[in-house]
């Protein structure tokens, strides 16, 4: 039975909703509206003249080879971050789900990276992979492997992927562990009695039963890689070398803040906004349908 409280009038309900509405308005609707408005305008370099240009900013962005390159970078980066963060987290969660000594300590330690700020995470990985002061970076160079992410675009991409994925592993780990723990033990025992070895059991019973969790995490991880990795990239490579690690969100920053091309920057952020809305819609649509037990 659902209990519905019915208010007389609108003043009290509005007052109760006000804090949330205010936050949504000030921090989302207003800037989003401003971005949409800005995206159809063009300013001169000194900000003296503003002119309405319709969809021209969008046209320019979509045909710009630099933007397309950033889109490709984003695709590679997001796919790599999402798959590696999820694969590692799933592996760790499966290990933690077994009854092992010190499981609680292990779980606590695994959750820590989530509490680390993006910039701090970046510095941490920088200390490991810096070619001259980093532990691993120096070791690699001494071992004869030329490692310098400041010169090699591929290596830079690898580094930002590792650092971004590392930060997301904790989050995925918690969800996977909860998912694993919600699978009834007796179902796994039934599979064992049916003759399935652990590996087979994992792929035919555990993994399919985790699919709602996996799908949810896939969307969350893609959104994370698309939008929340600015800090890591900014602190580690600044989008470089060249534009090797410049993702769409980073390009919005470069375009708007460094190049002060506000119209183009706004158009790009509107495109990203449409993307994230689309992803959220897909997530909600699918999650409702894909839960099969």
């Amino acid at each position, binding site marked *: 039975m659902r209990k519905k409280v019915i208010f007389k009038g609108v003043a009290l309900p509005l007052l109760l909703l006000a804090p949330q509405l205010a936050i949504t308005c000030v921090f989302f609707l207003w800037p989003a509206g401003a971005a949409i408005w800005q995206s159809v305008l063009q300013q001169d370099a000194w900000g003296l003249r503003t002119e309405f240009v319709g969809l021209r900013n969008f046209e320019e962005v979509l045909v710009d080879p630099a933007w397309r390159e950033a889109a490709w970078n984003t695709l590679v980066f997001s796919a790599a971050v999402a798959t590696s963060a999820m694969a590692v987290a799933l592996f760790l969660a499966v290990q933690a789900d077994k009854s092992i000594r010190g499981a609680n300590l292990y779980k606590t330690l695994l959750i820590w990276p989530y509490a680390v700020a993006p910039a701090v995470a970046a510095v941490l990985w920088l200390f490991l992979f810096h070619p001259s002061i980093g532990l691993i970076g120096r070791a690699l160079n001494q071992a004869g492997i030329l490692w310098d992410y400041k010169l090699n675009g591929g290596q830079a991409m690898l580094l930002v992927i590792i650092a971004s994925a590392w930060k997301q592993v904790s989050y995925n780990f918690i969800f996977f562990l909860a998912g694993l723990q919600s699978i009834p033990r*007796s179902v796994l025992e*039934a599979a064992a009695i049916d*003759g399935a070895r652990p590996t087979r059991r994992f792929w035919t019973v555990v993994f399919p039963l985790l699919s709602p969790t996996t799908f949810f995490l896939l969307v969350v991880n893609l959104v994370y890689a698309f939008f929340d990795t600015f800090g890591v990239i900014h602190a580690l490579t600044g989008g470089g070398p060249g534009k090797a690690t410049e993702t769409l969100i980073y390009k919005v920053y470069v375009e708007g803040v460094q190049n002060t091309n506000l119209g183009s920057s706004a158009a790009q952020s509107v495109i990203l906004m449409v993307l994230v809305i689309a992803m959220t819609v897909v997530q909600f649509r699918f999650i409702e349908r894909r839960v099969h037990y």
Partner: protein
Amino acid sequence: MASLELTGIQKAFGATQVLHGIDLAVAEGEMIVIVGASGCGKSTLLRIVAGLETPSQGSVRIAGREVTGLEPADRDIAMVFQNYALYPHMSVFQNMAYGLKIRGTPKAEITRRVGEAAELLGIAALLERRPRQLSGGQRQRVAMGRAIVRQPKLFLFDEPLSNLDAKLRVQMRAEIRRLQRRLGVTSLFVTHDQTEAMTLGDRLVVMHAGHAAQVATPMEIWARPADTYVAGFIGSPAMNFLEGVLVEGGRAVLLRAGPVLHFADGPRAGPDGQRLIIGIRPEHMRRDPEAGLGLALDLVEPLGSETVLHGRLPGGEALTAKLHGAVPAAGGALRLAIPAAELHVFDAASGRRLDAGP
């Protein structure tokens, strides 16, 4: 050759000893019911047979083969779980076929065997459904089907009926029994329900605090319980226990409630004055308006064809009697006789049954 042989099975979880050395030999095709209150170790014993737990000591042999250290997969057994443990993401057909598929059975053979089992259980129309679209009774049948398609050496049942409603439980109970007879597969069935145990088992293992208190046929357990625990556990309403002492050179007992009863089947070995517990089943009590013991009634339960009476004897001991027909409980008292032929005699110190000496 025994189909299942347990020797000295012990199990401890940390410092807690749950099983204290269980021995059991089960013949080919026999249905053994392990019955006991919760926490007596019956499920642990079943899980040890399944290979889901390892015994701290002792060995398990299935069809003459030592399986103690083997994985469940290598034991050639099938198990029906209390919550059915169906694979929620698979159809009924896939659920039943899973074990065969893993063993690499050819597709045509799988289809044939699943079809046969589904026919046998009356679930042929449900093969494409998912478990969540089934009722409790149907899930139960699918779980049974999954067990029988594999044609294992041993069936294990872990309280499979306890999640069903009362009517369905009685129906499934009979069905399981019929099926087991028909397939002739050796079975181990765990339950806490004594009616289930009595009706299903060729033999029962009554478990108490990690020991097998008695292993015998249902009728033997009812007629000659090995100790006071078994005597009180099997039978409904439960057996009455009265205190007494051995008198007349072992030929009679002096009850605390008053009368001296002479044993119908001969004297017990033991010194006069030895403390005894006398068991008498409620259904064996007789009305005796002249010579009977006075029972002060405090509860009368009419069940139609019979009446269950709860009351206290003059000494204050509680007593239950089940009498045929309606009983006029006038004045709240009744005189009852204890037939000497129906007595169960136990030693008060050990709780063990004392039989008439040779």
